[in-house]
């Protein structure tokens, strides 16, 4: 039996007030299994607050690779699919878990996810959605990296927000993965946001519902036409400044 490793993929744009609450808790809650788990954090913020806090607070976690921090200023306005693809494609473990920056994993939540994959023989898309669309957990999707890469990740042709998670789940099911819903309360807690809060920094004149509707239609059309792979070119942003060790920043492309 090979135990799969896991990457929590986090994105953050100007929400220091939220990640300040969740990140330390999540790192501490999963420390027992850190030989199997990494946290990928991609910072799209316009100021240096998060970067300074990460470097001063999590030096040891950065050093051992339990936390990997990346920063880029290439994303000028929030686009959920591009942001999530960026964090997912920086991950190096077997299972990729999208963890919004306002989400809590729960105590040993990473172990819980690995157990679900072992129990279901790996070919699943795990959805840790609490059931209330406003509870902030809808985007908690876990999938094996090879399947995520196979379908090209989140669809970047979408409007900046809305239905990118539902579309990902649909396409993963279309390639044969079993949908597993786990609504266990301890593992899907999140800080609640209003729809207005969630579309801050989105450069669109449309509201959330309009974007959601357009994306649903695009998704439906693509799937009906058998287009299951998104993004012709390389998805996500690959130009970053990374801080994975206790070294100074390095630019790489």
């Amino acid at each position, binding site marked *: *039996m090979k*135990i799969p490793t896991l990457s929590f993929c986090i994105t953050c744009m100007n929400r220091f007030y939220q990640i300040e609450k969740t990140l330390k808790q999540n790192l501490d809650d999963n420390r*027992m*299994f850190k*030989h*199997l788990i990494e946290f990928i954090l991609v910072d799209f913020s316009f100021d240096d607050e998060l970067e300074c806090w990460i470097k001063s607070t999590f030096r040891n976690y950065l050093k051992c690779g339990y936390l990997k921090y990346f920063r880029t200023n290439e994303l000028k306005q929030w686009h959920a699919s591009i942001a999530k693809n960026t964090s997912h494609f920086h991950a190096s473990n077997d299972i990729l878990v999208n963890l919004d920056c306002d989400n809590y994993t729960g105590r*040993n939540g990473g*172990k819980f996810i*690995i*157990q679900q994959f*072992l*129990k279901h023989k790996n070919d699943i898309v795990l959805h840790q959605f609490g059931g209330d669309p406003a509870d902030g957990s809808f985007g908690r999707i876990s999938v094996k990296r090879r399947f995520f890469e196979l379908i090209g990740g989140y669809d970047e042709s979408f409007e900046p927000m809305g239905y990118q998670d539902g579309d990902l789940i649909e396409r993963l099911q279309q390639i044969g993965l079993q949908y597993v819903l786990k609504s266990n309360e301890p593992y899907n807690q999140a800080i609640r946001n209003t729809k207005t809060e969630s579309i801050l920094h989105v450069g669109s004149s449309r509201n959330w519902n309009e974007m959601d509707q357009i994306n649903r239609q695009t998704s439906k059309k693509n799937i009906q036409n058998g287009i299951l792979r998104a993004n012709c070119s390389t998805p996500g942003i690959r130009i970053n400044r990374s801080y994975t060790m206790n070294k100074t920043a390095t630019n790489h492309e």
Partner: protein
Amino acid sequence: MNELNDYLRKTALILIRNASFIEPVGLIDGKTGIAIFLYTYARYANKQIYSEYADELMDEILQSISSGLPLNTNSGIPGIGIGLDYLARNQFIEIDPKETLQDIDSLIRKQEACLPKASLESIYPNSIAYWNNRRNQEETRSRTSVLFSRLTTIYRANPSVPLAKESLVHILFMLKTCLDQQIISDNALLLHKNIFSTLRLHDNTPALALHIWNILFPEKKIEKNDTFSLNDLIALAHLQFIYNPDIPARSYYEHIPSSIPERNVLLNILHCANLQNLGLKYNLTGTAWFLLNYIQSIPSRS
């Protein structure tokens, strides 16, 4: 001694990395036995980290207790109950006996009530071990009485058929319980006498059965030169806490008729460990559990 400690440490590390991801939860085949090893090792090595992992396993074990588990000490409810009772008695965990163990009591009673009478007799050795650990004389008495009546009938019908090695060891423990607690008299005494003759006279007596006999009935000690296999050592360490919790650990390990595994054997076990089979019944953890008990039973060894 450094080699033994090194083996224990490496085994503990393998367990904390992998035990949460195996399926079996039982005392001998799964997480319950592993948790017991980790708690005991944490206390022995004075490293709390191992008991934190054991706590995590305990949460998983408690969540998995259901009527879907079998009625045996290896992988099922009675074994988990014995494990919890052992951990609580040795102050590794704090559980509310009224809640957890009484839930297990009810589950066992319910499962027994659903079984046909013929199957019950094969289940009884497992549940007797549980009730005896729970010190519930009434439940122990009712099951032992049925079981021994049946065993005596088999033995009377064909005394030349030696009992299977594994059954024999279990029967010896139950005999001890019967005689100590004066649960039944005639059948137990007759069986005691017959087994004594068999063990004394036959050349191919299993070494483990003989060792257990000498521990349980020192007044009728049988002297024979015999050696233990690795499997015997592992089995000995299981039996220590499945049956008769009142017998001091020291008596199990004081006069073992073989030497402990050598360095190359231990290295080979570590090298060949199957990460799906991590319970006490398998070589890796079984050997570690034996060594831990062996070292601890006589302080001069550590």
